[in-house]
């Protein structure tokens, strides 16, 4: 499988990564190379082999339903400064703030 310029443009948009127009073509080549390299794995015969979900032989760790975390709003908001809020204090009323999103 190889990617063209438009595929790269779409992937970049979905990932919210800004890619200049002139970088699309070279990126398409590089990404296609990587995919081609990984695709060698498909040469291995895997018919009837169940997908392996982990290299460690273990089952899903379970957590009991008890409240053991949270109640740390100050930590959660510690990095959330917002220059748009006049006070310079992002923790307006204890919320995160972001540029207005209205659907």
């Amino acid at each position, binding site marked *: 499988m190889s990617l063209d310029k438009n595929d790269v443009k779409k992937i970049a948009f979905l990932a919210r990564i800004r890619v200049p127009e002139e970088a699309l073509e070279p990126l398409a080549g590089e990404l296609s190379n990587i995919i081609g390299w990984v695709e060698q794995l498909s040469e291995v015969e895997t018919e009837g082999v169940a997908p392996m979900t982990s290299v460690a032989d273990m089952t899903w760790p379970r*957590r009991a339903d008890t409240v*053991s975390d949270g109640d740390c709003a100050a930590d959660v908001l510690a990095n959330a400064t917002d220059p748009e809020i006049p006070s310079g204090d992002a923790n307006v009323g*204890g919320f*995160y*703030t972001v540029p207005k*999103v209205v659907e």
Partner: protein
Amino acid sequence: MSYIIEGKTGDWEVVIGLEIHAQIISQSKLFSGAATAFGAGPNTQVSLVDAAMPGMLPVINEECVRQAVKTGLGLKAKINLHSVFERKNYFYADLPQGYQISQYAEPVVGEGTVVLDMPDGGSREIGIERLHMEQDAGKSMHDQDPKRTFVDLNRSGVALMEIVSKPDLRTPEEAGIYLRKVRSIVRYLGTCDGNMEEGSMRADVNVSVRKTGETELRTRTEIKNLNSVRFVMKAIEHEAQRQVQAYDNGEEVVQETRLYDSQKGETRSMRSKEFAHDYRYFPDPDLLPVELTEDEVEAIRASLPELPDETKQRLMDDFGLTPYDAGVLVAEKETVAFFEAVVEECGDPKLAANWVINQMPRELKRSGKSIENSPVSPQNFGKLLNFVLNDTVSTSAANTVIGIMYVDGDDPVAIIKDKGLEQITDSGEIEAAVDQVIAGNPDQVADFQGGNEKAIGWFVGQVMKSTGGKANPKMVNELLRTKLKG
């Protein structure tokens, strides 16, 4: 029950499927130990996992899985012993991870069935496509500041079940009945509180229309985030009309997400995001597949409470109630519990059903209370019915008593005594009242004696009035007939 929209180019039927998002009842979140309680201060129930801090790892809350399985069993559905959490990738301010952990290709619950009780007494089976677990996003508030959106992550990571129906629903009313039924089932099970006002249950509705007789499905639209049964029904009506008009005008219906505006009573397109449906699901590498054993599932099955359909059948079999009455009683588990306690007290299920279905909601509404904080105990409710059964009070006096019970206090004995509402069964006293009415109304007497038998009702009313509603109506009737004919 058919629902046909007459368009310019012919008759159209509506095809509806519902996706119900139901918050799982649990103490802590699906992947973190933060609390789930409603109404806490902003961002106080957020762990570093829920805020998606780098390097934080999710660990599955086993109780949430059990609750999802329990719900699946309640929906008579296939339980998948092996299921997988995947990442659904999209960007939004209230989704700190940049993806929602959900189940996609391998959900925990497969196909099932919900039986609807239709108003005509019949029933309809609606297929369940699947039920999967997923985490909720945070909450955005757009009205706090002119330029900023505020985000509270308390809901972020709370466990949800998404219950997806097959496109088996054909009318707005059926969709409403289906939503109510699923709500009733999860509330009986104790897996979701069903509180639509607090957002613990909401629905996305898929709607398409097709000419009657067509067997293929046409393009559907999805109306997101409806938080009441009424809105679900209204939104379907409007959206179906809109689609019929589009086809009639030679336009196409575009597959898109729409929002219902309850103020304007219309649906409108959400600003369509390019590639909006390209979620690039893939198994979450941070989580191992959920593996359950037959024994675990059987243990959950053994713990299932009686469900609405079973309770309804039991009320019909044991008490001889009509399907309609039994259906009304079982819709809310609190109502049926109250009803059964009333029956225990008074021993007459039909009278109890009648009063619990009619008088109880009326009095609760009048006193501004709900059945959860009912001012009247089922024991006192039943005691009052006993007084009706043994002729201590007339039905009309009992109606007065119950009104007082719901407002002032709840002991019927005291109220009846206090207000002097014991039924008059002393024939002498009733006879005096009857004589007085007959003597005072010669015209009506002549009317009756002239052959208008129906006039008896008027006389009964007059006697009841003059005795303050306390005379035994049966005795009044008999005395009147004897005397008027004599």
